[in-house]
Structures are given as structure tokens and as C-alpha cells.
């Protein structure tokens, strides 16, 4: 994978708004953003309601994902172009999620909703109606998703990249600064994790930084060993999906997993090691 295989810019998306075989999908946590205006022809997916199991803490299962995509009018042959708010956090998460269930023809709009808005490009309010399909998903690709036992076993052996803010990493905050503080029982980070906040991979307009800057950020500045396996985590797995996208899809590292349990799971586990303080 490389940048040109996975990222498209706003001009490209504008040119493909009505092209058959391409489905533009906005993914957000707060879907009122979509209702306020979205890229013309785009359908919406709700990060929480559509992608998370309503009872267990897990994803919707294969059958649920098939029903979701069928209902949205997305077929197995369609190329899905994802974008969203929060500098594409949730769109990158959906990208990872689509790959997990085997949808290979997936692209991400560089800069997401923010770049589109700051460019003053057209936003539509009408909701497109697409004919239902019979989507067939694959079994989850375990090579992309890290679970807690694997994360604990990776301490000191693999790269652990904590993409939260320095205050969350150090244990001073339990959530990003624009949210009320709550969630995991204990603050801190997984021992041996490097702190590379997701935001360092993005420009101010939400686009990803250039390949050489990204390589330098992880390899030289943070000391991530590109010859080793890597697990990225954050608080609930969406910011780390953004970093998973950078490492696996843009820079092409062969073995990168996203730990979607992330700090809300790890910081609530009994008996696991936790490190406090600044990054080393």
C-alpha cells in the first residue's frame, strides 16, 4: 500500500460524486454534522449506532455489517470513499473496519470534512436514496485487530504506539480535552509505549503530512522500530485507527494492528502493568 492507493483529494471526490461504482460515505460520531450538510450523494454511517454492538462492547457481527452495507446500497464491487469530522478519526476507523470485514476497495478523502468545509466546497442537505444490495462480508481479518492478551504479551517486544495526547499518556487526563473526564479506572500508559499523538500526523487542515515527514516522526523522533510488529492504541480505538492508517496504509509497514479496546479497556484491567509520566 502507498498513499496514492488509499488517499484521494477533494478535487478527485468532486469529480466522482455521480460516478457509478463509487459510494461516498460520511462517518461521524455526531451525525448531526451530516444533517447540517454533506458532500453531495454521500450516505451516512453512525460510528456508534451502526458500527458498535448495542449490548456487548464489540463490533456489529458479520451479519450485522452485511445488513448495514446492504441497507446503505453498497455492493461488494463498489469503491467506498470515506470521509468524516475530527480530522477523519471516525472515517479512518471505518476504513480500518471495512478492511477488517474484507472490503478492499476503500479510499479515504484526505483532510475529510474539515478540508472540504474550509475550501468552501458544496454541501448538500438532501439524503440520497440508493437501491438495497445483498452485501457479503468476509470473516474479520485478525491480522488488523489486536486484543488485550496480545497487547500485554507485546510489552517490551513489539512497538506499542500510544497516540493520545501527552496529558492522557502521562496519566493526568483520562479523555481528550474537549470531553468531560470519565471512563478508564486508572490513568497512564502501557509500559514501553511510545507517545506519538495522532495530531502530529496531520496538517492543520486535516490532511496527512508528507511521507518523509511521517517517517521521520515515527522512526527518528519517536524511535519506532520499523522492522518490528506494531500495535497502535488510544482511548477507544478511533484515533489509533488514524495512526494505523498512516503506518499500514500510507507508509506500508507490513504488520500493524489497531487495539480498539485501547485505554478504556487496558486502564480498567486488574493486575496489568501501568506506567505513569512523560514519554521516554
Amino acid at each position, binding site marked *: 500500500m502507498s498513499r496514492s492507493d488509499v488517499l484521494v483529494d477533494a478535487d478527485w471526490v468532486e469529480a466522482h460524486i455521480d460516478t457509478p461504482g463509487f459510494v461516498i460515505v460520511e462517518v*461521524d*460520531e*455526531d*451525525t*448531526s*454534522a451530516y444533517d*447540517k450538510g454533506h458532500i453531495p450523494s454521500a450516505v451516512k454511517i453512525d*460510528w*456508534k449506532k451502526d458500527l458498535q454492538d448495542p449490548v456487548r462492547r464489540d463490533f456489529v457481527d458479520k451479519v450485522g455489517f452485511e445488513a448495514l452495507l446492504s441497507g446503505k446500497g453498497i455492493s461488494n464491487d463498489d469503491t467506498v470513499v470515506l470521509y468524516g*469530522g*475530527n*480530522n477523519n*478519526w*471516525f472515517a479512518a476507523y471505518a476504513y480500518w473496519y471495512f478492511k477488517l470485514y474484507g472490503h478492499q476497495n476503500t479510499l479515504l478523502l484526505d483532510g475529510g470534512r*474539515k478540508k472540504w*468545509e*474550509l*475550501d*468552501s466546497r458544496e454541501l448538500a442537505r438532501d439524503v440520497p436514496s440508493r437501491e438495497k444490495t445483498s452485501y457479503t462480508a468476509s470473516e474479520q481479518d485478525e491480522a488488523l485487530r489486536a486484543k488485550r492478551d496480545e497487547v500485554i504479551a507485546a510489552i517490551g517486544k513489539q512497538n506499542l504506539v500510544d497516540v493520545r*495526547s*501527552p*496529558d492522557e499518556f502521562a496519566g*493526568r*487526563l483520562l*479523555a*481528550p*480535552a*474537549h*470531553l*468531560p*473526564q*470519565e*471512563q478508564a479506572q486508572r490513568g497512564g500508559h502501557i509500559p514501553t509505549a511510545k507517545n506519538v*499523538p495522532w*495530531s*502530529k500526523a496531520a496538517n*492543520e*487542515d486535516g490532511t496527512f503530512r508528507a511521507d518523509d515527514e511521517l517517517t521521520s516522526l515515527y522512526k527518528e523522533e519517536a524511535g519506532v522500530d520499523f522492522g518490528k510488529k506494531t500495535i497502535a492504541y*488510544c*482511548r*477507544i480505538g*478511533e*484515533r489509533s485507527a488514524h495512526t494505523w492508517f498512516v503506518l499500514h496504509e500510507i507508509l506500508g509497514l507490513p504488520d500493524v494492528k489497531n487495539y480498539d479496546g485501547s485505554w*478504556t479497556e487496558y486502564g480498567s484491567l486488574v493486575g496489568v502493568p501501568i506506567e505513569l509520566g512523560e514519554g521516554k
Partner: protein
Amino acid sequence: MSNDGCGAPAGGVTITEDKAGKEAIVEGHVLRDGAPVATGYVRLLGTGDEFVAEVPLGEDGGFRFFAAPGDWTLRVLAPGDVRLEQTVSADIGHVTTVEFAI
């Protein structure tokens, strides 16, 4: 309130000074000629312009951060290359209000 995502709470939340509790809240509005700017973003930056958080503006041009106590820079981004900045101090149990005019 319950919100286990990292995005801005849907539709915003209403908080008054007496409800700030143990939060250090920084909030305000972005207006153009007195009218709310509904398309734009506010970034919360720490020392050395270190990025900490970002929220989209609400329909009323409003924004809100739950910050750590201390000094912060707010940077507004809006269409037309608008870029405004202001420094603020946040304290636990207080709501610091900042109004921007484009």
C-alpha cells in the same frame, strides 16, 4: 453525561458556572457581523502551539473545551483562510468565556 467517543457531544451540552464542578471549561462563540459562524473549527493549543483538541463550531457558532487548568491558545479556522487566535487561562470549577469576531 455519557459520551464514550472522542467527538464533540451531539448538539452540545449546557453547562453553567455552578455546574463546572471539577472541570476547567473554556467556551465561547465565533461571530461574523454579529451572526453565528456555523462552519469552522476551534483548536486548543498548549505550550509551543502543541495541538491538544479541536471542535467544530455549532449552529450558534459555539464551542467548548474541557481543558486541564493552565494557559492555552485558542485558534479559530474558518472558510476564506480565516485564522484568529487568543490566549486564555482555564481553572478547575470555572467557565472561561471567549468571544471571537471575524
